[in-house]
């Protein structure tokens, strides 16, 4: 530095300061939705796999004035956190924004920030495109349609044929139907399985409990967004049933989707598990090729059917091209397109017409003994009668209150104390 000219060193000082300030101030705030040369640029935000990779170029071909940018996020959790934050910030969301069913409760009371699709969407898109319950669940607290349904996750039950046979329980498709007809028969079978083998019957109590709650007419919230946890007898009944089963040693006490749960599949630590359509892939991956042919899936689910998972396409009010965005969302959620997405990534379509298509009905899965999985899940999807209303905080109660409390019971806490934990936790979230 000594040889540097004083003026030069002064200039460097200024330059360093300027550069550091510029680095702080820099940051582009472009949202992407800009016209360029008469073209309309649309953005679409999805997470994990929607199967839209080949569909979006096709749409661009059909609509020469439209250019689409696809923002894809690997994981659902961060995607939805980002969604809520950008919704709050009032900018940055894509013109077409996907929302998962489990996170829909976080936006259900923020419907004002989304466009009513019956107003801006194409008029030929009507309720009869979708299964009734799927369509209804796309409405906000005020009953405005804010999301077009994409896929669903109808519930079935997966079981280990060999383990059931070893315990002298029926393991053929006809025989298990009686076993899995109701929750009573399911838990009774579990008790005799435990008595005969000394091994657990199901993987994680929260999986069963959540399915039972989803079958209720009213969930954690009524339509007025009032918490029903203490007034709704169905919730406590489900709790009592599951905690009783834990007491009988029916639970493998694994945490769903955790590492040990995955190992449990490979080790054959349990005989049954709740199987939404997308779970087949999870079972295959975690149980591995060594267990091929041992797992079976049945269209008998205790007390009828149910749904777990699936998404919606919304058009936030922040979009600068709501009409064009709604047209894109309507096109993507048409039966033809969702069927292509199903073939690409296995996302089970929610459109009635798609559920009767031969491509779907003829789909089989060799891992599960060549059962016609498409037909099976289409049947399960029709068993769902109505959409349960999910109030704001619904997803959080499931993730942060009931699931941990059930885990606590599995770890030795008394069901009565854990129920108090549920009531306190739910009240805190609903506050």
């Amino acid at each position, binding site marked *: 530095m000594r040889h540097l000219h004083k003026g030069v060193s002064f200039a460097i000082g200024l330059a360093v300061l300027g550069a550091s300030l510029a680095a702080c101030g820099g940051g582009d705030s472009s949202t992407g939705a800009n016209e360029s040369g008469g073209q309309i640029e649309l953005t679409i935000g999805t997470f994990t796999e929607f199967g839209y990779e080949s569909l979006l170029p096709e749409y661009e071909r059909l609509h020469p004035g439209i250019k689409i940018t696809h923002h894809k996020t690997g994981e659902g959790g961060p995607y939805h956190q980002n969604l809520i934050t950008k919704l709050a910030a009032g900018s940055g969301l894509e013109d077409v924004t996907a929302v998962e069913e489990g996170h829909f409760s976080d936006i259900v009371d923020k419907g004002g920030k989304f466009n009513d699709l019956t107003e801006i969407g194409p008029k030929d898109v009507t309720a009869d495109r979708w299964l009734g319950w799927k369509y209804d669940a796309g409405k906000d607290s005020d009953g405005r349609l804010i999301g077009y349904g994409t896929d669903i996750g109808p519930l079935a039950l997966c079981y280990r044929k060999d383990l059931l046979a070893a315990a002298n329980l029926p393991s053929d498709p006809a025989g298990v139907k009686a076993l899995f007809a109701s929750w009573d028969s399911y838990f009774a079978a579990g008790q005799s399985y435990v008595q005969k083998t000394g091994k657990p019957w199901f993987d994680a109590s929260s999986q069963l409990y959540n399915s039972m709650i989803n079958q209720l007419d009213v969930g954690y919230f009524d339509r007025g967004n009032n918490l029903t946890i203490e007034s709704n007898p169905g919730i406590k009944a489900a709790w009592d049933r599951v905690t009783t089963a834990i007491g009988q040693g029916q639970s493998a006490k694994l945490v769903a989707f955790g*590492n040990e749960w995955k190992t449990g599949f490979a080790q054959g630590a349990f005989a049954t598990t709740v199987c939404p359509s997308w779970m087949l892939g999870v079972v295959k991956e975690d149980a591995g090729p060594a267990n091929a042919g041992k797992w079976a899936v049945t269209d008998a689910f205790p007390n009828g059917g149910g749904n777990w998972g699936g998404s919606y396409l919304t058009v936030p009010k922040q979009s600068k091209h709501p009409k064009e965005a709604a047209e894109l969302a309507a096109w993507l959620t048409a039966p033809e397109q969702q069927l292509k997405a199903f073939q690409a990534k296995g996302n089970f379509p929610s459109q009635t017409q798609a559920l009767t298509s031969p491509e779907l009905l003829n789909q089989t899965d060799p891992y599960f003994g060549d059962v016609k999985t498409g037909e099976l899940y289409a049947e399960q999807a029709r068993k769902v009668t109505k959409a349960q209303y999910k109030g704001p905080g619904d997803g959080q109660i499931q993730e942060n209150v009931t699931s941990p409390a059930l885990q606590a019971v599995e770890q030795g806490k008394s069901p009565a104390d854990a129920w108090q934990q549920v009531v306190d936790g739910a009240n805190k979230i609903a506050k």
Partner: protein
Amino acid sequence: MTTSTALEPRQRAPRGEPVRPTLRERIAKWDVKVSPYLYIAPFFVVFAIVGLFPLLYTAYVSLFDWEVGDDHPKFLGLKNYAELLGDGQFWNSVVNTLSIFVLSSGPQVVIAVLLAALLNTRLRGPTGWRVGILLPYAASLVAIGIIFANLFGPNYGLVNSIFESLGLGRVDWQANRFASHLAIATMVNWRWTGYNALIVLAAMQALPKDVLEAAVVDGAGAIRRFVSVTLPMLRPTLIFVVITSTIGGLQIFTEPKLFDAMPGSNNGGSTHQFQTVTLYMYQSGFESFDLGYASAIAWVLFLLIVVIAVLNFLITRRMGRIR
């Protein structure tokens, strides 16, 4: 500023006339006065933007009922703080944090000093050893978290398998509160002990040799020399190590988050048995979207760290005096 003028050869002012400073002289004067500030300014400017402003803005937000997406947050005054002081889950998280902090920082500093003393002896390939103990620090925190969570898995974890083969009982590392703290503290210790040992080692090597030699002449043994001479002289370094590990230990977040068997959970276990203050703060802010409450937690945590850091400073200073 035109540097071309400054580069021209200087013209001397005629004798006797009052010297009017040339542009170059004025620049030189400014250079001496202002340049040092310009050089250190980047730090302070960046600090003001990413350090001081968020700190003060957090204090402002903590006075409101501010949910993500609220267009008109309601002013609450100190109500968030009042609620926080009566919140059982918060105090539970404070106890967890302190427990994990004591279980990690305590053994960590002791082992670091002993390790440094060992490394300070004559060893073959000293650089290899020194780099070796720093290796855990270079590993990715998230990778460590995932691996340790697997090691401490209650059903299929390696630690429990070893315990079982040794004839000891299985430990439910997730359910048992103390066991979970121990498992998390192990992660912290594994990562940070080597780093602290190197800092202590550097200080040890900078100690004046003559004092130690004088102790040898006086007939002090190795242990006596270490306790009575080396340790007291390491005091400033130990204060530094203790304070940085206090700050790090009380902000512990990634380890308990990844330790939870429930993927992505911020609950810190089924009954919050290992939820730390930062984890609770994160959950309040980014899962419950209650920014006001989360900001209040952040400030109380800040004050807590200041208090404990000051306490540690006083204790460490005193310990040196007694010796």
